[in-house]
């Protein structure tokens, strides 16, 4: 199994460290040809406007769409925005997932936070019952899911922070900033 991490901008190195810990072969993706032999792809945290623009400029936009139709993609924070159909704003979006997101939904950086989440599918898949400690940085929320997309996790107030649509995964928070590899394991279970 070989997993790519989109390395246009953001915390792609942190994702690679997590995948290394799980013994998975990795590759940094900056150009379309880097997608060729991958089984799955992670789109990291960063600035979604920057990642979107660079994807367009270097011809990655359509290849990423094609990739996501057949193979697993997980977007964290900016990556989740990039996977969405609608971010209520004019910026390049892959539109692969039937989710609407609101950027910077919790406010500015002083409102960034850490919180424990109960994510049942994750606990089932990894046979653990400890809560998942999540880090939210200028995070988006998933306003709504439709079509094939399903809610994976909510905050205590009901706001959606993780969603799944078949082999596609979106999280508002950053599993790559923790020492807990369970979310990465969960993603790998979606990779065929």
């Amino acid at each position, binding site marked *: 199994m070989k997993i790519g991490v989109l390395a246009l*901008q*953001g915390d792609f190195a942190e994702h690679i460290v997590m995948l290394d810990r799980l013994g998975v072969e990795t590759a940094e993706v900056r150009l379309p040809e880097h997608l060729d032999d991958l089984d799955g792809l992670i789109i990291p945290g*960063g600035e979604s*406007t920057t990642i979107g623009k*660079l994807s367009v400029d270097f011809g990655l936009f359509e290849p990423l769409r094609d990739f996501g139709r057949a193979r697993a993609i997980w977007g964290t924070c900016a990556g989740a925005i990039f996977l969405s159909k609608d971010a209520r704003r004019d910026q390049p979006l892959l539109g692969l997932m039937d989710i609407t997101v609101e950027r910077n939904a919790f406010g500015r950086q002083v409102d*960034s936070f*850490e*919180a424990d989440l109960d994510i049942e599918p994750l606990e089932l898949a990894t046979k653990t019952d400890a809560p998942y400690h999540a880090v939210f*940085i*200028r995070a988006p929320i998933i306003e709504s899911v439709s079509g094939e997309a399903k809610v994976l996790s909510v905050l205590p107030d009901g706001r959606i922070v993780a969603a799944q649509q078949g082999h596609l995964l979106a999280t508002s928070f950053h599993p790559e900033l923790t020492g807990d590899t369970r979310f990465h394991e969960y993603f790998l279970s979606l990779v065929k």
Partner: protein
Amino acid sequence: MEQQTGTFAVKKGLAQMLKGGVIMDVVTPEHAKIAEEAGACAVMALERVPADIRAEGGVARMSAPELILKIMDAVSIPVMAKARIGHFVEAQILEALGVDYIDESEVLTPADVEHHIYKHDFKVPFVCGCRNLGEALRRIGEGAAMIRTKGEAGTGDVVEAVRHARTVLDEIRRLQNMPEEEVMHFAKEIGAPYELVKETRELGRMPVVNFAAGGIATPADAALMMQLGVDGVFVGSGIFKSGDPAKRAAAIVKATTHYSDPAILAEVSKDLGEPMVGRNVSTMPEVEKIAGRGW
């Protein structure tokens, strides 16, 4: 568990999101939009870019709140603003305005000649400049969640940025290769907290994100700093003091992503118009250099 804000993990985490990106100095909301459109991962809201601060002289202070707020309104990317070294009230004001990062910056006139701001007291994260590892780790000890090597701001001459980045990276390499019993002496020599020195040795890198700043003016300069091993770049006067800011800004963003691909670097370096004029640091009188500010 309750939601916890202002933790070191979320402060440091925002800097991690900026990695591989370009943070651009802007003095108007229009500049900020050009920067965002070009792919900047954040902007630094300022009244004057460093080249103008140099040219005009006088006391350089925190920018006016109304200007910072207009820039925050203009873009969706993070907005940083500068406070004077040691001026914790300017920092309190910037935090109250809601800026995403404070740069406790030597580019402004220092307010204290011995002490920096005690940054652990704030919920907003801070970035600070350094010329060497000791200075970086002292700032992290005070609570900085991001470091930038200083270079020599407002010159368009990359030589000091290279000097400072190489110094830091060389010190980390030496630290990793020395026997355990020499680490305490090393910490004493560089004037840095022992625990942070040990952490740096174990990680093989600084414990927070480290960008380069001060004199980066071309796509090649940005890629040079990335190849040396920094996590991203600040570009100050280099963009909006050049002939075609939008084009140059986009080119520097592309060069920072594809820093190790010479064919792409060659392509993005074409037809950029006039670079900023620049000032040669080696012929600059010592009194005009600002990198020495910081204790």
